[in-house]
């Protein structure tokens, strides 16, 4: 793309798709914005009229909203920490030459192919269930009281389930990054007297920074919208203990049938996502260049 004319041609060529993508994005956003200022409740006959910022102030004054905001960030942060740390460790482990490596890798990747409600059901009924679950059986085996995961630790349980689903993704990315590390670099470090721990710290970890950045950015996008796992297991409860922003919006839109208020929640969620994205890019975005 060096000459003037090829550059112009290139712009003309991409223009239609840019235009379509723009429409694709702006129409739903504009409609959400429109409804967020409207009175639009499906259960009441009159569905018209502007309400100004009422919907927004309702959110900001609701204690549930601040809890939901905290829960959303805790969910994203918790899952990120768990998947990045465990992902790096598992990737290091399955990068070792072992018998049946192909099979092992497929097993590690498998959870990613389980759809969220199914994964959540499996965890709820087979692992965390107070009577039938594996964990309660283990607890009873030790003579202890079974832990009521979803009742007493609802948010942590959801974090655990979501981490289990996203761990394969992180592991896979880290594994490919590890495989691109030249073995000569590790051998050179070994000759330079670096212990395995120092090799990890000074050679492997810096090599992985870009992969870690990619994992954090991609996962954040998806984790901000986590819904299915909560819906299947805790329903946002007990009380609002595991309600996140998306789940709160869902409650307004589908349970309370208040479209206007849900739209305002949606706009707040968009703003939150942009704030998170801004700080992420400022914090770790530089690792993406070069």
């Amino acid at each position, binding site marked *: 793309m060096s000459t003037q004319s090829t550059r112009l041609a290139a712009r003309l060529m991409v223009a239609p798709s840019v235009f379509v993508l723009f429409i694709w994005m702006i129409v739903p956003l504009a409609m959400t914005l429109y409804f967020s200022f409207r009175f639009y409740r499906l259960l009441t006959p009159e569905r018209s009229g502007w309400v100004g910022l009422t919907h927004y102030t309702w959110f900001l004054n609701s204690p549930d909203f601040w809890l939901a905001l905290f829960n959303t960030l805790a969910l994203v942060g918790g899952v990120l920490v768990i998947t990045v740390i465990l992902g790096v460790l598992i990737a290091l482990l399955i990068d070792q030459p072992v018998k049946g490596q192909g099979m092992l890798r497929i097993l590690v990747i498998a959870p990613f192919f389980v759809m969220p409600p199914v994964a959540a059901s499996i965890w709820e009924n087979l692992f965390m269930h107070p009577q039938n679950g594996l964990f309660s059986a283990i607890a009873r085996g030790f003579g202890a009281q079974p832990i009521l995961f979803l009742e007493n630790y609802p948010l942590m349980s959801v974090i655990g389930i979501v981490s289990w689903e996203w761990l394969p993704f992180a592991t896979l990315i880290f594994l490919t990054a590890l495989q691109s590390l030249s073995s*000569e670099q590790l*051998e*050179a*470090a070994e*000759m*330079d*007297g*670096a212990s395995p721990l120092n090799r990890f710290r000074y050679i492997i970890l810096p090599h992985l920074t870009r992969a870690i950045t990619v994992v954090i950015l991609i996962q954040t996008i998806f984790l901000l919208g986590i819904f299915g796992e909560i819906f299947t297991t805790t329903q946002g409860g007990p009380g609002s203990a595991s309600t996140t922003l998306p789940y709160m919006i869902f409650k307004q839109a589908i349970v309370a049938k208040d479209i206007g208020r849900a739209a305002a929640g949606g706009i707040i969620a968009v703003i939150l996502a942009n704030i998170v994205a801004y700080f992420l890019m400022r914090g770790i975005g530089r690792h993406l260049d070069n």
Partner: protein
Amino acid sequence: MGKIQLTQVRKSFGEVDVIPGIDLSIEDGEFVVFVGPSGCGKSTLLRLIAGLEDTSSGTIAIDGKDATHLPPAKRGLAMVFQSYALYPHMSVRKNIAFPLKMAGMSEAEQAARVERAAKVLNLTSYLDRRPGQLSGGQRQRVAIGRAIVREPSAFLFDEPLSNLDAALRVGMRQEITELHQSLKTTMIYVTHDQVEAMTMADKIVVLNAGRVEQVGSPLELYHRPQNLFVAGFIGSPKMNFIEGAEAAKHGAATIGVRPEHLDIVAGGPWQGTVGLTEHLGSDTYLKVTLDSGEGVTVRAPGEVAVRHGDRVALAPQAAKIHRFGADGKALA
């Protein structure tokens, strides 16, 4: 400091015996070059000495102590890799200081040693750059710098110059030789380039299929090759081999004459037709097909006015004829 002794060292990868059993001793302060064709096991042998590869059997002793099962870091050797293996996310300074940092040396001592190494290798103005911002020759020097700061008992080089262009290679060759002369540390240098081997080595080890064919000084190998392999491998252009009746006249199964030891003289004993000629200015290389059907190469000094298809007569210099028996070994 820096004496390395290999005894019956064997290495196999699964079924394949890459090194069937090598005895070799390297004296302190020597510049030893391993040469051999591609795939003959040079790198493997070097990695065995470095400890990056486990021996299948046999012992490696460094300075009289058995090092066969010591980890690489404990052997006191430094290695320069073909791909340099610099740490891309560290500055040149940090790269060079890395082995010192791993050894737990104080910051001040690290800085002093890095400074000294950088001065020796002309790297002082690049210390704050990343390896990605350096040229091939500079990267090579950083890799050497990282090796010398530790003051190892021996250096191991695996084809360190093969990624450089011809002019830079000559320069780096001299730098490494000078480095050896000033440090007086044992160096083991792997290459498949025989010019490097001939110009740098105190002692050349010619390897073929994992076996040592001959060990000796460059001129020893040139003048007295012990077998056909060494005779054909050392020297450029390759030595001419002639078999049959002509060899029988000298009481050998094969005789070898280097291209530079064949003279074009009227009435010479070997008659032939000139094929390809290569004019290098300083020398002329002639490919001559003898009447007996064998092809030989002649290296004539200066410019020779012969053309494709001309008839020439060649005379081998009698004292420079190498004789080999049917088993390929040189005859006394």
